[in-house]
C-alpha cells in the first residue's frame, strides 16, 4: 500500500492520493450543486414576494450585470489558460494567468458590492421582504464563494512560487481551477434565472 507514483499523465493524477483528493472534490462539488439548487428553489418560491420594497424590474440594471458576467466568464477562460501553463510546467505562465484571473474576480466582487449598496440605498435590503432576502442570500452566497476562492488562490500562488509545480501543488491548483469554473457555471444560472427573468417579469 505504499505510495506508487506514476510517471506519465497529468502531474496531479500521478499519485493515488492526488486521484482521491480530486474525486473527493468532485463529490464536494456535487454537494455544492445541491446547496445552490436549494437556494435557487427558495429564490424561485419567493419570487414576486417583494412586499413594500421595490420590485427587481425597477432596480436591476442590465449594464452592471453584463459587465460582471463578462468579467467572470473571462476569468474562467484565463483560469483555464493558467492550468494549461501548469501542464507545460511554467510557473511563470501559471502565475501570470492566475493573477489576471484574480484581478477579474476582484473586479466582479467590486461590482457586486457596489450593486448591493446601490440596492440598499433604493430600499431593498435583506430585511425588506422575502424576495429580497432570497435574492441577497443567493447572490451573496455566490459572492462569498468567490471571495474565499480568491483568498485560497493567493495562498496557492504563494506556495507554488516557493515549491514550484509538483505532484501536490499541481493537484491543489487543479482543484481550485475546478472550483473557479464551478462558480462560473453557478453565475450563469444566476445571470439568467435571477437577472434576466427579474428584468423581464
Amino acid at each position, binding site marked *: 500500500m505504499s505510495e506508487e507514483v506514476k510517471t506519465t499523465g497529468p502531474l496531479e493524477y500521478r499519485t493515488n492520493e492526488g486521484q482521491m483528493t480530486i474525486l473527493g472534490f468532485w463529490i*464536494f462539488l*456535487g454537494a455544492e450543486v445541491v446547496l445552490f439548487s436549494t437556494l435557487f428553489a427558495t429564490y424561485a418560491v419567493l419570487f414576486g414576494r417583494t412586499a413594500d420594497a421595490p420590485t427587481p424590474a425597477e432596480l436591476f440594471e442590465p449594464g452592471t450585470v453584463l459587465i460582471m458576467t463578462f468579467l467572470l466568464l473571462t476569468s474562467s477562460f484565463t483560469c483555464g489558460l493558467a492550468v494549461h501553463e501548469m501542464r507545460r510546467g511554467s510557473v511563470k505562465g501559471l502565475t501570470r494567468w492566475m493573477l489576471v484571473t484574480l484581478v477579474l474576480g476582484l473586479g466582479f466582487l467590486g461590482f457586486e458590492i457596489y450593486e448591493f449598496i446601490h440596492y440598499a440605498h433604493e430600499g431593498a435590503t*435583506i430585511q425588506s421582504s422575502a424576495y429580497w432576502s432570497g435574492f441577497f442570500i443567493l447572490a451573496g452566497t455566490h459572492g462569498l464563494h468567490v471571495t474565499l476562492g480568491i483568498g485560497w488562490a493567493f495562498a496557492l500562488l504563494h506556495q507554488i512560487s516557493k515549491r514550484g509545480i509538483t505532484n501536490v501543488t499541481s493537484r491543489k491548483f487543479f482543484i481550485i481551477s475546478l472550483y473557479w469554473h464551478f462558480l462560473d457555471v453557478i453565475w450563469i444560472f444566476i445571470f439568467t434565472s435571477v437577472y434576466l427573468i427579474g428584468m423581464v417579469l
Partner: protein
Amino acid sequence: MNIKALLVDGDPLIYGAMVSIGLVTVAILFLLTYFKKWGWLWREWLTTVDHKKIGIMYILSALVMLFRGGMDAMMMRVQLAFPDLGFLDSQHYNEIFTTHGTIMIIFMAMPFLIGLMNIIVPLQIGARDFAFPYLNALSFWAFFMGAMLFNISFVIGGSPDAGWTSYTPLSGAAMSPGPGQNFYLMGLQLSGIGTLATGINLMVTILKMRAPGMKLFHMPIFTWSTLVTSFIIVFAFPILTIALALLTIDRIFGSQFFTLTGEGLPMMWANLFWMWGHPEVYIVILPAFGIFSEVIATFAKKRLFGYSAMVWSMIIIALLSFLVWVHHFFTMGAGAFVNSVFSVSTMLIAVPTGVKIFNWLATLYKSKIEFSVAMLWALAFIPSFILGGVTGVMLGMAAADFQFHNSYFLIAHFHYVLIAGTVFACFAGLVYWYPKMFGHKMNERIGKWAFWFFVIGFHVCFFPQYFLGLDGMPRRLFITNVVEWLPLNVISTVGAFGMGIGFAIFVYNVYYSYRHSERETTGDSWNGNGRTLEWATTTPVPYYNFATVPHVDEIDPYVRMKKEGKTTFDEPNVKPIHMPSYTGRPFIMMAFLGLASFGLVFEWIWLAIVGLIGGIIFMILRTYDYDEGYYVSVEEIKRTERKARGL
C-alpha cells in the same frame, strides 16, 4: 449580559442537573490530573487521525447522548403517567421533547452508526484508513463541538422548545426570542457539516481504496449500505445546511424567509426540513440494515440470501427517499393531487423494504442459527420493524393520515422503526464488532439480560401508543388527564423504565466485560464464523490494519482464505506502509468554530468573528501543511504480526 442572567434558573430539576454536571466535570478533571492522564488524552485521542480510535470516540459520545436523551424520555414518561403530579410544567415539557428528539437523531443515532462505519468499513475493504484521515478527525470534532453546544443549552441560555422539527413561524425570532432556538440551529449546523464531510470521505474511501480485485459487487453488505448512505448524506445534508442557515439569518439578521411579515413563507421551512428529514431517516436505517445483514449471515453460518437484491433494494430505497417528503405534512393543504402523488411514492418504498425482509428470512431458513446476543438483536428486529413499516404504510395513505397525523400513532410508528431498526442495530453492531475494537467480547449472559429487558420494555412502551393515537391522544401534549388515556399511558411508562433498566445493564456489561471477559487470541472471534475481511485481521487490530492486503474476487472472501490457509500476513510480500501523522489541529480548529457558533447563539457578533478568524487561520495553516506522514518499517510490521499471530 452577566453570568447570572445567562444561567437558567428557577427550577429544582435544572439546579440538580447543574450540580451533577459540575460534579462530574470536576471529577473528570481530578481523575485526569491525579492519574497524570492529560498527556495520554492529548497524544492518543485528541490528536488521533486513526479511523478506529475516531470510531470509538463517536460511539462513546453516542452512548453518552443516548443516556442524556433517555433521561429526557424518562422525564416525559413520568409526566405522562402522572399528569396531576405537576412534575414538569408546559415550558419544561416543550424543551424536553425538543432536546430528546434532536439528540436522539442527530447526536445519538447518526454518530453511533458513523462510529461503526469508521471502525469497520476500512477493515472490510482492506484499506489502511479513510481516504482523508485529517478530514475524518475534523468531522468528528465538528460533531463533538456541535453536540456539546447543543447540550449546554439547558444550563446556559435555555433549551430550544419548538420540537426537533423546529417549524416556523413558531421557531422564528418573533415567537421564540432568546438563544434557545439558536442553540438548535448552530448545534445542528456544526455537526451537519461534519456529517457531510464524512459522507464525502466514506464515498471516496469505498470507491478508491478497496482491496485489489474487489469489485463493487464483492463488497460486504455493510460497506454497501455505507456507500449508499454516504450518497444520501451528500445529497441531503446541503439542504439542511441551507435551511438552518436561512432560519439563522432570519433570526439574527432579520431576513424574511420564514416570517409572517414581509411576505415570508413559513411553510417553506417544512418543505426544506423534510426534503432533508426524510432522507435522514434512511441515513439512519440503511446502515442498520447493513449491520443486521452481516450479523444474520454470520450466525446463520450462510452466505446472505439474495446479495444483489439486497444491494439493489438499498439503491432504490435511497432514490425513493428523496421523493416522499410531503408525507410529513399531508395536512398542510397542498391539495389532493400532490398528496396522492406523494402517497403513492411513499407506499412504493415499502416494496424494496419488503424485499429485504424476505431476504433475511430466506437466509435464516433451514440454517443452524447460533443465538448469540448480536443475533438476538437481529432476530428481534425483524418482527418489530415489520410493525413499524406496516403502520408507516398506513400513515402514507394521505386520507387516513388526516386522522393519524401528529397523534401517538405517529409516535409509535417512528419509534418502532427507529428503535427496533436503528437502536437494535447499534447494539447488535457494537456487540458483534466489540472484540475487534477492544480485544474482548461483551459478556453474553449479561448481554441477554439487557436484551430481554430492553426488547420487552420497548414493546410494552410503544405498542400501547398505537392505540393511544387511535383514541385521539395528540403528540407533544403535557397534560393528559383524559381518563380513557391514563391506563395505557401508565403501561407505556412502565415499559420505558424497562428499557432504561436494559440500557443500564448494557452499560454495566461494558464495565464487567472489561474486568472479566477472556482476552481474544484469534482475530476471527465468533467461533471462526467470520466471512468478511475485518475478521482476517488480528485482534486488537494493528494501527496499520493490514500487513498485506489479500486479492479478493468474491463475496465473503475470508471463508475461502481460511480454507486455503491464507492470512493478511503474507510475510515475503510485506512492504513499508504509509501512514498519516497525528495532529491536534482538527480539534483546535473545531474548538474555534464552536466558539464562533456559541457567539452566534447569543448574537455576540464580536465573539463569532473572533472564533471565525481562528477557524480561518487554521484553514490557512492546513493549506500550507505539507506533512506527508511516515512509513511503518517492514521489520516493525513483521515483529507486530509475528507476535499477534503467535508465530
